[in-house]
């Protein structure tokens, strides 16, 4: 394991170091004193698919894990906007809150956020064959959750009892599923979205990813069973073709 002190480093210098370490075959890195450096993890593409584990102490800047290609990143603190932008594979764990456009256009991998997240979470998230992005939020999200969502799984656990206050959930949604612990009003969701109770398959999905969430945050001392026994609702698109009827012939 290697440590980097990010205190004096600018974004590019930090990412230079990370890339060099990946190329040198280092698999685990701890970065301390991170304060606003962007795109951590983005420069780590290698044709031979090397994988690193990166632990971050501090507050990473925007676009953390953008285009991430299979690495694992843990943030001991809050994250800003754009976490997991167009992420392809890998895992991000945020021991705090995340900002806006979390998981934007994400197509694979997992993101776990302990607390709440901002606007436009999981916007245009998509899935393809074995690539299934999963985003689990301990708290809730602000407006425009799952806008244009085309695939993947989003779970909001509302562990801190604030309720889901976000509006415009799933506007333009045409794929994937959002699971919310608690209730949601019809007016909060987009017209393309159906609110339904969970079936057996949904329960299995929840069981699996809530377990993973609980494992990621041992300090919270959560019980999966306690969480799962509460009421959940599912938001899913009414159609895979939301805009098929807006044109003249």
């Amino acid at each position: 394991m290697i440590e980097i002190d990010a205190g004096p480093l600018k974004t590019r210098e930090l990412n230079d170091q990370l890339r060099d370490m990946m190329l040198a075959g280092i698999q685990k890195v701890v970065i301390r004193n991170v304060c606003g450096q962007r795109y951590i993890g983005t420069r780590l593409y290698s044709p031979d698919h090397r994988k690193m584990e990166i632990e971050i102490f501090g507050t990473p800047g925007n676009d953390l894990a953008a285009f991430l290609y299979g690495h694992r990143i843990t943030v001991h603190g809050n994250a800003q906007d754009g976490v997991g932008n167009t992420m392809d594979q890998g895992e991000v764990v945020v021991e705090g809150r995340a900002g806006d456009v979390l998981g934007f256009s994400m197509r694979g991998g997992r993101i776990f956020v302990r607390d709440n997240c901002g606007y436009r979470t999981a916007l245009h998230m998509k899935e393809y064959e074995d690539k299934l992005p999963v985003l689990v939020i301990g708290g809730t999200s602000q407006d425009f959750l799952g806008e244009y969502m085309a695939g993947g799984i989003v779970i909001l656990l509302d562990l801190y009892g604030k309720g889901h206050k976000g509006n415009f959930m799933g506007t333009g949604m045409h794929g994937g599923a959002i699971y919310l612990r608690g209730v949601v009003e019809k007016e909060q969701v987009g017209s393309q979205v159906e609110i339904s109770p969970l079936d057996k398959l949904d329960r299995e999905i929840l069981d699996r990813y809530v377990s993973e969430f609980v494992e990621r945050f041992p300090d919270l001392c959560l019980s999966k069973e306690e969480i799962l026994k509460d009421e959940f609702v599912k938001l899913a698109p009414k159609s895979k073709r939301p805009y098929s009827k807006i044109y003249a012939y």
Partner: protein
Amino acid sequence: MPRIRRELYNKEICACSIFGAMNRDGERFTGKGVMLAIANMHVRGNGLGGGFAAYGIYPEYKDYYAFHLMFTGNSPEAKRSAKVGFDAFLCENFDVVSDEEIPHSDEAVVSDPPLIWRYFVLPRKQGEEALLSDEDYIVKMVMRVNTEIENAHVFSSGKNMGCFKGVGYPEDIGEYFMLDKLYSAYTWTVHGRFPTNTQAWWGGAHPFSLLDTTVVHNGEISSYGTNRWYLEMYGYACTLQTDTEVIAYAADLLMRRQKIPIEIVAKILAPPIWNSIDRMDEKEKKLLTTLRMVYGSLLMNGPFAIIIGQTGKMIGLTDRIRLRPITAATRGEMFYLSSEEASIRLISPKLDSVRTPNGGEPVVCELNNIRTVLE
């Protein structure tokens, strides 16, 4: 048709970083911390503008309006001659108790600074002007200077506060005015700018201000033409080629002249969408419907995050669907607003609370005891 008659206003487009820090006990602190914080968002700007607003910096002159002036021109002589023109105007309309060139450091990296001067003044109203309140008189005179006196530009005009701004990165502008050494304020707001043009025009930097209201802004206001047309009906001259100006004037019109509380002002600048209004109870629905009908031309459309500063108050607000970020945080008596959380953490690693307010929801921080600064 001669070209001049067409509506050929220029609007600069710019985007940016914003930061604000306030001590609710009214304790004053230097600009050092906010300079560090804004420098941490260096990449959000491009070195073509930075500026600060500081509240509580002139306690010895707190009863006087503090005018900050820029005198521009191609040569030192041109700048001085602009000052001569302005001084004549000032002596006619104000009693000046003190004036001096605003001190600056020659080591800072800034380009082509104008001559920058400050005056502490009281209005000298004559004839029918006696009917105007002091503040209306100041607004009128500021508009006059900015439209009529060539190369002279009032960029700060409130009491016990001041703006400092120019072309450069904000940390360099701070250094130029030595804000980390010479001034202590209970509220600082800061702006780092990313304009899409380079006319090195110091007046185009943020904050924009009128009396003690200052605005720093991130985003582009797509309703600018509509907002401007509306404000010009009320005597506000938009001279700065920048959309942010209209927010400062809208805030002045609504908050000072019409005495509308900030919570309502927020509903004018960033109203809820009709779908949400339709679901409200009758009383609220009526209020919001009426606000939109009356003040529709002041709806600030397009992405924005702003920090409005006023005496004893700092307000953060984003557009109604929060297209621009703002993070609010507290630590003890300190209150922070920032485009990015990391900048707050840089100067206050431990925070009591951190949140990102909803679009259109104002975050208001007021002094615990407003008298600490007024008396």
